[in-house]
C-alpha cells in the first residue's frame, strides 16, 4: 500500500517539478514560474511584480502592463546577496527593434541610452525589498534593465525584461498549464500507470526518497519540553520570562544544550513580536528564556530547537491564548 503521506509527497514533488521546470515563457530576465513571477539577475533571483494601484488596485502583473499610469515595481529578494548589492533600475523605450527578444547585447549596442531612458534610479542598497514607482505617460514597448553590483568582486549582473504598456498580457496561462501537469501526474500515479511503466518499486521508492529530502530530518532522541512562567498563563501584550525545562522521554534532564526559541501564529503567517533569547542555563535541564511576548489572542506555536552532542531536534509547544 502506498501511504497517504507518499501521495502527498508525490504531489509536492510534482508541484515543485512544475514550479522549477523552467522557462516556459522565458525571455529577458523575468520568468513566470507557476504563479510566481521571478526576475533573474544572473544567478540572483527575486520575486518580481508590478502594480498599477491607482487604476487597478491590488491586481498584480508580471511584465506587460494594461495602462499607461502609475506603476509600482516590486522585487522581493529570493537571494540574500541582493540585499547587500547596489541595485539600479532603468526603463527605456524599446529602440532595439528586437521587441520581446531584446537581450543585454542589444542594450549594449544602443548609442545613447540616456535619450531612450524614461526612468532611471541610481544604484542604491535596499536591505529589505526593492521598490520603484514610475508614472508611465505613454503606451508602447519598453525595456526594463536591472543591474546589481557584487560588493566584493565588483562584477555587475543584469536582467533585461522587455514589456508592453497598454496591453493586457497573457496573464497566468503558464500557471494553468502547471496545474494541468500536476493533475495529470497525480492521475498517472494514482491510477497505477506510473507503476506499470516504471515498476512499483521505482515509483514508490522515488516518491519516498524525494519525500524524505523535503521533510525535516532529525536523528536526535525524543525530547520533552515544558515551560513555566512566574504568573501562570502568559498575559497578552506583556513581556515576560519563561523557564524552559528539557528532558528526554526517559526523564533524563538535558543539560549543556544549545537552545533556540522561535514561534508564531501559523494561521496568521507571522512570528512572535519579539526575538526571545535563552539567557541562562539554570541547571537540572532548566533554561531561562527572556523576552517572550504574545500580542494577539489565538493559536500560537513555540518551536524550541535543541542541539546536543546527540544531534538536533525541534519540539513544538502549542498554546491557545
Amino acid at each position, binding site marked *: 500500500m502506498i501511504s497517504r503521506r507518499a501521495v502527498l509527497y508525490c504531489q509536492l514533488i510534482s508541484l515543485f517539478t512544475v514550479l522549477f521546470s523552467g522557462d516556459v515563457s522565458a525571455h529577458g530576465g523575468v520568468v513566470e514560474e507557476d504563479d510566481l513571477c521571478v526576475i533573474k539577475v544572473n544567478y540572483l533571483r527575486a520575486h518580481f*511584480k508590478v*502594480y498599477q*494601484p*491607482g487604476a487597478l*488596485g*491590488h491586481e*498584480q502583473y508580471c511584465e506587460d502592463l494594461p495602462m499607461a499610469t*502609475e506603476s*509600482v515595481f*516590486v522585487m*522581493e529578494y529570493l537571494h540574500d546577496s541582493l540585499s547587500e548589492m547596489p541595485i539600479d533600475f532603468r526603463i527605456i523605450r524599446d529602440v532595439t527593434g528586437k521587441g520581446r527578444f531584446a537581450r543585454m547585447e542589444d542594450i549594449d549596442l544602443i548609442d545613447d541610452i540616456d535619450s531612450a531612458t524614461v526612468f532611471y534610479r541610481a544604484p542604491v542598497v535596499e*536591505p*529589505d*525589498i526593492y*521598490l*520603484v*514607482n514610475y*508614472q508611465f505617460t505613454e503606451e508602447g514597448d519598453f525595456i526594463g534593465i536591472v543591474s546589481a553590483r557584487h560588493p566584493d568582486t565588483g562584477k555587475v549582473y543584469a536582467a533585461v525584461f522587455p514589456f508592453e504598456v497598454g496591453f493586457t498580457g497573457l496573464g497566468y496561462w503558464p500557471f494553468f498549464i502547471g496545474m494541468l501537469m500536476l493533475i495529470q501526474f497525480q492521475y498517472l500515479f494514482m491510477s497505477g500507470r506510473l507503476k506499470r511503466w516504471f515498476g512499483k518499486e521505482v515509483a514508490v521508492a522515488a516518491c519516498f526518497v524525494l519525500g524524505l529530502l523535503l521533510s525535516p530530518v532529525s536523528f536526535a532522541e525524543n525530547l520533552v519540553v515544558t515551560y513555566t512562567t512566574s504568573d501562570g498563563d502568559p498575559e*497578552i*501584550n506583556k*513581556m515576560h520570562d519563561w523557564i524552559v525545562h528539557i528532558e528526554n522521554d526517559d526523564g533524563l534532564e538535558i543539560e549543556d544544550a544549545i537552545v533556540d526559541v522561535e514561534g508564531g501564529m501559523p494561521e*496568521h*503567517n*507571522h*512570528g*512572535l*513580536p*519579539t*526575538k*526571545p*533569547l535563552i539567557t541562562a542555563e539554570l541547571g537540572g535541564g532548566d533554561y531561562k528564556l*527572556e*523576552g517572550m*511576548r504574545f*500580542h*494577539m*489572542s*489565538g493559536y500560537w506555536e513555540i518551536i524550541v530547537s535543541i542541539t546536543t552532542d546527540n544531534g538536533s531536534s525541534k519540539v513544538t509547544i502549542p498554546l491557545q491564548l
Partner: protein
Amino acid sequence: MSFGLLKIAAALAALGLFVSACDRGASRAPEWTEAEVTTLKSLWLESLPDLPDDPSNAVANNAIAAEFGRKLFLDARLSANGGVSCSTCHQVARRFTDGLRKARALGLSDRNTPSIVGSQYSPWQYWDGRRDSQWAQALAPLENAHEHGTSRAQVVDTVFGDTDYRMTYEALFGPLQNPAGSSNVELNIAFANIGKSIAAFERTIMPTTSRFDEYVAALVRGNADAQREILNADEKAGLRLFISKANCTQCHNGPLLTNHEFHNTGVLNFPGDVPDKARAGGVREVFGSEFNCRSIYSDDSAGHCPELDFARTGIELIGATKTPSLRNLEHTAPFMHKGQLPSIADVLDHYNKAPDAMIGHNEAEPLGLNTAELQQLEAFLTTLTAPVSELGVEL
C-alpha cells in the same frame, strides 16, 4: 418584492412580535456569555493598568516638567519659521490628529499624524516604531525639515533665551549653558531634557471614558436598563462582531484597543510613493537612534532595555505598521499610515476583502461580512469616542 412575498413578510413580522411579547415574561438567556463578558472587560478602560514607569526619563511623572512640556508643545518658536508647534498636527479637537492624509507642517511629511492618546503605554512610537520612548519621539519632528525644521541648537537657544523657560528648566535639570558654548554632548543632554519635558506632558494625555466603557460598567453592575439605553441594537451587534467573527480583537485588544505591535494589512501605497516598508526600516532606525534607550541620554542607570534587546527584525516586518488605538476613531480620519482610507467604512471594507499585500504578506484573512454587519461594526466603532472636554488637557 411581489405582493405574495409582502404578505409572508407581514405574517412573519406579526409572529416575531408575538414571540417577543411571550419572551418578555420568560427569563431571558444572558446577553453575553461568561467568556464574552471577560473579553468585554479586557477592552474596558477600567482595565487599563497604571501608567508604566519610564526609567529613561527622570521627569516622566514630574508635574512641573509636564506643565513646562505643555508650554513647549504649544510653542511655535520651536520651528524654522515660527509657525509650527507640536499642536499644529496634534490638534486636541481632532484627538491629537490633523484630519489630513499626510501631516503637513513646513512641508508634506511621509505619513499620517497618529494620535498621542494612549501612546504612553506603547513601547514603540511612530507607525514604524522608529523611536522607543515618547521623549525620543518628541525630538525628531523638531529637526525634520518637513515638520518644525529647526535644530537642536536653536531649540535649546529658545529655552535659554526665555527667562521663564530657563528658570523652569534649571529647577528641573540644573544649570543650562548657552548652547553657543556647549559641547555636542552638553547640547544633546539639554535637547533630550526638552524632549523629556514634552513627554512628561504627553504622558498626561490619557484616554477617557467612552459610551462603550459606560456600557461595560453597566454590564458589570448588572444594570440591564442602563445597558439598553447606552448602546442601541446595531451598536451591540457591532460589538459582538468586533469580538467574534470580525477578528478585530486579534490586534485591537486591551483597553487601548491596540496591541502596540506591527502588522502588515495590505493597504495600497500612497499615490506617487513606493509602498511603505514601515517596520522593516523602523526597527533598523531605532537601533541606530542616538536617543534610544541604550544611549547616554537615557536616565536609566541600570541600562535596562528589554524592548531593544528582544526586538524582532527580519523580512516579515516588511510593510508592517503599528496597530493604532481605536479610541476616538470617528475623530481621527483619514485612516491608515498614509491616510489612504478616508472613512471607517472604507477601512472595514478593506479588512473584509483582505487583498494581497503589494509588499510582504497581508496577515488579515477575508471576513465575509455582509453590508448590514459592516454597518453594525461601524456603528459600534463610533461608541469609542470620548468627549474632548474630558481629555483633561487645556491647550
